[in-house]
């Protein structure tokens, strides 16, 4: 039924979400906001995976399985990334990426 | 079709209604949409009206268990007490504190109510009588409890109040922690029955073991059922896990700044959530609407289902009215150091036990016995470590613990 919606519409949403996420990841000063941008990027990729799965190999679940792997990696990335942010905040009292420019802590 | 057929099997009303709409020359999607809207309104009405009865019942039973009278002024036996409360809450002034974050302050109660209404959709009341028999049913239920924790966190943050924020943190830590044993005890049931859809779970439990024992999951895996029961005590924020409203420590949880109807929504969520958790317990472990003659007269399923759910709910109320509150460190320790490892062991027991012999009946006996053994081993280990803990404290503080421990 959902095949009546053209595939390119879903891909356009994915592209839009990716661009917004990219802007968020590049333009924000706050480390947590950058992380949110990266989560949007991963979501955009997942939309594409699931859409291709639905429209090109509807009898298989390859795209969905990959999307679940991406989901798990996104969660691991968020967990470690936020732990780093908390740790940096504790030692340097800031989470602005412009202020965190020393290679040694 | 005649009216008796509908009384015998109410799940036929939906398809019949759809046919009637289609016969008027309507587009199929319009007919589906109308059917869905009516279904949604039914779910909402059932949830709200059951809440009215439930709040009265809970207050009355808790009062009687604690040798009090409970509500007895409004109407006979205080039956109209909840209606009186609703009128009061509707006409109460709604205060938004200074410095509150208005958007999240108003969004938080809506998320709480959304959670209970969405969970209500997957409860199968009788054979086929379910809002949506999702193929991901049980995982959907687990996912929805995440919405409630977001709501609690939002309420705590938006209130700009230290008690509310601390309460929000605590309740989220509690809900999160106990979601793990909750999900994994459900996983044990899914391994055995091979489906996540709630109605199919009830159908699967209709098979008889050795031809006479009802194949309910509580018979096959009593320990998993016990773990699930403990987890729903915590998920429903009930004593002994009601740290949310530890008055002496944090006043009342994330909802202290709320008043009027917005407070009422939190209150509603608390009561209806326990009912829904009891319904899920009845569906997953007590066979749902299964009972004698349910094949001939599916309408009987409604009675069986509510009887089972009410028994679970009474057990929840009983525990709530009896036990004192745990400390937060005891609660978290119990979850992560006892419940989570034990639940993983139970999952492994069920997974391995389901493969021991080709005969499902014998496997059920093996899993059941292994469950009971695991329960006693756990009790033994926990008891020993608690005794050792007491010994250590005794040694550290001579003079205390003179009374028998």
């Amino acid at each position, binding site marked *: 039924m959902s095949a009546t919606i053209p595939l390119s519409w879903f891909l356009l949403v994915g592209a839009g979400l990716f661009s917004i996420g990219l802007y968020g990841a590049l333009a924000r000063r706050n480390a947590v906001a950058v992380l949110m941008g990266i989560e949007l990027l991963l979501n955009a990729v997942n939309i594409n995976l699931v859409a291709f799965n639905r429209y090109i190999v509807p009898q298989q679940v390859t795209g969905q399985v990959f999307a679940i792997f991406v989901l798990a990696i996104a969660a691991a990335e968020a967990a470690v990334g936020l732990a780093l942010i908390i740790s940096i905040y504790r030692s340097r009292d800031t989470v602005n990426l412009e202020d965190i420019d020393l290679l040694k802590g | 079709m005649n009216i008796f057929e509908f009384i015998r099997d109410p799940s036929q009303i939906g398809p019949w209604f759809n046919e009637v709409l289609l016969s008027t020359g309507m587009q199929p999607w319009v007919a589906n949409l109308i059917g*869905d809207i009516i279904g949604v309104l039914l779910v909402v009405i059932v949830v709200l009206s059951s809440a009215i009865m439930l709040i009265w019942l809970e207050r009355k039973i808790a009062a009687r268990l604690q040798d009090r009278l409970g509500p007895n002024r409004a109407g006979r036996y205080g039956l109209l007490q909840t209606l009186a409360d609703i009128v009061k809450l509707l006409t109460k002034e709604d*205060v938004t504190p200074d410095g509150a974050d208005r958007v999240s302050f108003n969004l938080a109660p809506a998320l709480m109510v959304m959670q209970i209404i969405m969970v209500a959709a997957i409860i199968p009341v009788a054979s086929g009588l379910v809002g949506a028999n999702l193929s991901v049913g049980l995982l959907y239920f687990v996912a929805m409890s995440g919405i409630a924790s977001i709501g609690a966190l939002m309420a705590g943050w938006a209130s700009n109040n230290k008690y509310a*924020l601390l309460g929000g943190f605590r309740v989220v830590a509690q809900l999160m*922690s106990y*979601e793990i044993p909750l999900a994994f005890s459900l996983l044990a049931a899914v391994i055995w029955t091979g489906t996540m859809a709630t109605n199919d779970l009830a159908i699967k439990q209709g098979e008889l073991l050795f031809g006479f024992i009802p194949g309910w999951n509580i018979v096959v895996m009593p320990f998993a059922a016990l773990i699930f029961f403990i987890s729903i005590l915590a998920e429903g924020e009930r004593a002994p896990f009601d740290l949310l409203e530890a008055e002496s420590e944090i006043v009342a949880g994330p909802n202290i700044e709320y008043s009027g109807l917005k407070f009422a929504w939190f209150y509603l969520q608390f009561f209806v959530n326990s009912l829904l958790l009891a319904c899920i317990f009845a569906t997953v472990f007590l066979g749902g609407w299964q009972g004698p003659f349910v094949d001939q007269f599916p309408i009987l399923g409604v009675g069986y289902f509510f009887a089972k759910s009410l028994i679970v709910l009474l057990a929840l109320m009983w525990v709530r009215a009896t036990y004192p509150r745990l400390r937060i460190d005891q609660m*978290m320790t119990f979850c*992560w150091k006892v419940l989570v490892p034990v639940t993983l062991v139970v999952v*492994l027991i069920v997974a391995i036990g389901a493969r021991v012999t080709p005969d499902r009946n014998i496997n059920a006996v093996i899993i059941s016995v292994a469950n009971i053994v695991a329960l006693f081993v756990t009790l033994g280990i926990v008891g020993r470590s608690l005794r050792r803990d007491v010994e250590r404290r005794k040694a550290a503080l001579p003079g205390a613990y003179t009374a028998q421990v």
Partner: protein
Amino acid sequence: MVLANFQFILILALVGLALPFIGVGVAWLLRPKKPNKLKSSTYECGVETYGDAWAQFKAQYYLFALIFVIFDIEAVFLFPWAVAYGGLGFYALLQVVIFIILLFDGLIYAWHTGALKWQ
């Protein structure tokens, strides 16, 4: 079937989200509206509130959330396996036992380092 369920759940979510606002709207028509400074000040035990509540909290809560996230993902992987388990062989069981043991390691590490201890 999937889309029929989707429509139901979507309508339910919208109604569930709208219902509290409708209720609050009805109450708005009925209730008194007399705010004043004292009434809308932050609730505390009688004394004036000092500072705002958006203070720093301890990292303990974060650690528990962390362990929760890992186990949540584990559940997402194990549920479809549990549904398929009836038609799978011994090999599937072995793989999942390894999977669970690998993640159990993480819990043992957390236990060992005292991250599970509430201070």
